[in-house]
């Protein structure tokens, strides 16, 4: 049971209370060092709270939140698997956590060694030649991949205009394409949920910079025509981009590099089990084929064969430059490295084996009650249901999802991919036991039965969560994106334009 309401922290404030302690001021004060015109006049409103209540506040907030450590989290396309605690211990080692990013190479040999070994492991698993660790998340990796595409074509004196993505693609793909300076061309999915090859043939041309795709795709289906797709794109001089969102399905089983991909991003917070943190931090390293390696962001860690020491390689003028303030989310890279070392080759292969087994088991048990969106294609690590039949009986996918909360499971992803009506996308991951999967099936079947016996309870669900369904329209219409002291009206601080409705 999640905890009841807790006040906004500012509402707990009492003047002159504090949690902080400060090191002694053991040198002369320098108050006059700042010109009066730059001195802060009004002190900011911050919480004034003693440490015990600060701890209770955040602990109570945590109890109003759901995580994998509490239970099943079958969010399709998110790979919400168990995050090993050993990785947390590894990242907390002072030799990693308390390392300054600008320290001299001689002081960071263990760090650089780890990064070089992680690069080698990721190359082995993806079939690529070189990696940049700078991208902070998957979407950041996508942008880097597109900038690499751009640099490659420009180096060949080639101006290209378009990037092709499937209509089932995640929203970050088209958003990244635009930021990379390209136009989006959508290729439709066929009735089997796979890229419509005939349509793709009609869409390609010499102005195509490349194609971005996940495989298995966002519908959880393996693009078995990938060799043909790669041939078509490479045939017009384009590059093939692998969105690693679904790498969990194939790790140790097959490799993007072997399928013809030129650029691959990985979500370490998915496949390599680093915790998602309520929205991050993740890490989105990008791996490329040999011919693209010189274009990668710099610097990159490397082993100097001459000296036997590790150092930064600053590349040459072909590098696209820097995409991160420092070296990427190294704390996450350390966790992913620990995970790879723990699992080893066989363990990594088990990841995809059991993730696909779990998804197929759930699909087999649910398909008579909820329609599979693509019954003719066998699912990989996730599958898409359509709540068409349930909608006809009065309950939408959202109602089913919200009612599942009352059964102590986090709902699957709903209304994505956009190409499926009433989509419910289920990704169990490999770390769930058969009992957990069976309990989920029982919950789904119970909710389905309720459509006929007590539809109202679905429409008003959830009933046992900290809140019932929030009024999202009101949140956008009457924007309150910060707390205000009670005596000041929101409009006075934010001005008349602070209440948009979009």
């Amino acid at each position, binding site marked *: 049971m999640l905890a009841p*309401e807790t006040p906004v922290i500012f509402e707990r404030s009492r003047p002159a209370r504090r949690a902080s302690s400060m*090191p002694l*001021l*053991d*040198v002369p004060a320098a108050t006059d*060092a*700042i010109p009066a*015109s730059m001195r802060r006049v009004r002190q900011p409103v911050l*919480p004034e709270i003693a*440490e015990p209540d600060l701890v209770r506040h*955040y602990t109570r907030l945590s109890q109003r*939140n759901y*995580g994998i450590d509490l239970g099943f989290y079958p969010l399709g396309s998110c790979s919400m698997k168990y995050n090993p605690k050993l990785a947390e211990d590894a990242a907390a*080692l002072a*030799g*990693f956590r*308390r*390392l*300054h*990013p600008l320290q001299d190479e001689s002081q*960071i040999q*263990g760090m650089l*060694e780890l990064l070089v070994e992680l690069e080698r492991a990721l190359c082995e*698993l993806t079939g690529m030649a070189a990696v940049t660790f700078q991208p*902070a998340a998957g*979407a950041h990796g996508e942008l880097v991949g597109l900038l690499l595409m*751009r640099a490659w074509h420009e180096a060949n004196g080639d101006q290209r205009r378009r990037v092709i993505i499937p209509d089932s693609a*995640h*929203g*970050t793909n088209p*958003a990244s394409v635009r*930021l990379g300076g390209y136009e989006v061309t959508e290729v439709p999915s066929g009735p089997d949920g796979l890229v419509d090859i005939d349509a793709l043939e009609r869409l390609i041309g010499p102005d195509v910079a490349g194609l971005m795709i996940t495989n298995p795709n966002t519908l959880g289906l393996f693009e078995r025509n*990938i*060799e043909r797709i790669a041939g078509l794109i490479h045939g017009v001089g384009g590059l093939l981009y692998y969105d690693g969102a679904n790498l969990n399905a194939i790790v140790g089983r097959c490799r993007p590099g072997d399928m013809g991909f030129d650029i691959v991003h990985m979500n370490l*917070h998915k496949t390599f089990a680093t915790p998602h943190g*309520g*929205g*991050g*931090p993740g890490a989105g390293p990008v791996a490329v084929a040999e011919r693209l390696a010189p274009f990668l962001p710099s610097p990159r860690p490397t082993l100097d064969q001459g000296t036997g020491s590790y150092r930064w390689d600053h590349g040459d003028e072909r590098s696209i430059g820097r995409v991160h303030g420092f070296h990427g*989310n190294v*704390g996450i890279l*350390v966790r992913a490295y*620990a995970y790879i*070392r*723990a699992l*080893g*080759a066989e363990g990594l*292969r088990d990841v995809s*084996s059991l993730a696909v*087994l779990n998804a*197929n088991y759930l699909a087999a048990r649910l398909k008579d009650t909820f329609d599979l969106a693509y019954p003719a294609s066998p699912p990989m690590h996730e599958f898409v249901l359509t709540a068409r039949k349930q909608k006809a009986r009065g309950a939408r996918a959202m109602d089913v999802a919200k009612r599942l*909360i009352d059964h102590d499971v*986090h709902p699957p992803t709903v209304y*994505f991919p956009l190409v499926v009506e009433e989509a419910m996308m289920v990704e169990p991951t490999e770390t769930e036991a058969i009992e957990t999967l069976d309990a989920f099936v029982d919950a789904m079947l119970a909710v389905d039965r309720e459509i006929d016996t007590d539809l109202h309870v679905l429409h008003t669900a959830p009933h046992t*969560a900290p809140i019932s*369904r*929030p*009024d999202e329209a009101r*949140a956008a219409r009457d924007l309150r994106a*910060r707390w205000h002291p009670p005596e000041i009206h929101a409009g006075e601080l934010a001005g008349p334009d602070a209440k948009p409705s979009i």
Partner: protein
Amino acid sequence: MRFAPHTDEDVARMLETIGARAVDELFEVIPERFRLSELPAIAPGLSEAEVLRDLAARASKNRSVEDLVCFLGAGSYDHHVPSVVWPILSRGEFATSYTPYQPELSQGVLQALFEYQTMICELTGLDISNAGLYDGASGLAEGVNMAIGATGRTKVVIAGALDMRYTGVLRTQGTGLHVEVARTLWTGEGTADLDAIAAAAADAAAVVVQHPNFFGCLEDVAAIAEVAHAAGARLIVHFDLTAAGILEPPGALGADIVVSEGQPFGNHLNFGGPYAGVLACRGDDVRRLPGRLAGETVDRNGKRAFVLTLQAREQHIRREKATSNICTNQTLNTLAVAMTLSWLGPQGLRELGERCLAKAHYARERLLEIPGTEPVFDAPFFKEFVVRLPAGARAVVARCAADGYLAGLAIDPGRAGFDNGLLVAVTEKRTREEIDGLADVIARACKEVA
């Protein structure tokens, strides 16, 4: 080791339900020529004890600020991380949750983000803060994209001494949108050159200034705002929020967008990441805001509730028309900022600023007592400053490391226009004894190196 719970019996039962003979059969959809027949060339798995022993051995090959006294900053600072922060944020309910798209199960993170946004508005003097970005560099790049969207222009003018890493990220990430990055130099004082900005800003989307700047000098934000606004450009200030208790917030001085690196509040050095990107703007720019925004509303029963709002700006709704491509951000690090600001409170934040200020000024005085050492800039500064050493800065820094000190950053003469420059950062953690020690080891190193 493995984390999956499957027994052989479980697998057999599941295969039977599926109607498959073996797990391999589930992968037959992959064309045979791509299926790997052998295991990847990755070392065999290890037990937990073995993994941690291996990692500890690697960590011990590094010399961290655990055993080096840190005066190195330049965008990443050795401030105190309150003990309350990570034990609480490591709770599985926070650390192992996904992006709060299901508000009924995410009230904890959503409320914490709403509280964070309030604190950032207070520190920056602006109306709206988003719920966090990757880091200070990406925050700046997103701020520039907002200005480009708002003005329809693509030029960005860098006012004076901006961290070259930030300039680098702006250049790289701006290539797709054809962003033109124009640098203006700093004056002899170390601060931005108003005339140069005015000359460059005529057709600019934004003027970008770091305050305090890369050399630690305080900038005249109000004057730069006037120049930027006269040219129709937005003013973006990359502000060090650890100074927010003692410096007037940029929003009150005319900044349109304030971005920052949240690392100093509760985030460990982590060899450069994960940190926390901060971005705040004026109310009338909210539709251009990148990333997530938490908002307050009510549930069906009229109870206070928090949700992600104005999502029509974001990639999962608006796709290629979104204000940014960001999805996963760095929420946990953002919550570390909020927890640390709550720990500090207004009094603590002011004391933090005063201590950094006092200790940095004491350190500069001590270093300038070293024979041959000279000041470089005269502008007022906060917690970081540059001195010119009588010997090669790189060699001095290397020598000091042997004595247990990270003396600072040796400034690249090619970029700075002066040689032997050392950029020194002093946080509230440094003691008088450590500062005196730094002056001693630098003095000794200068003699030895020269």
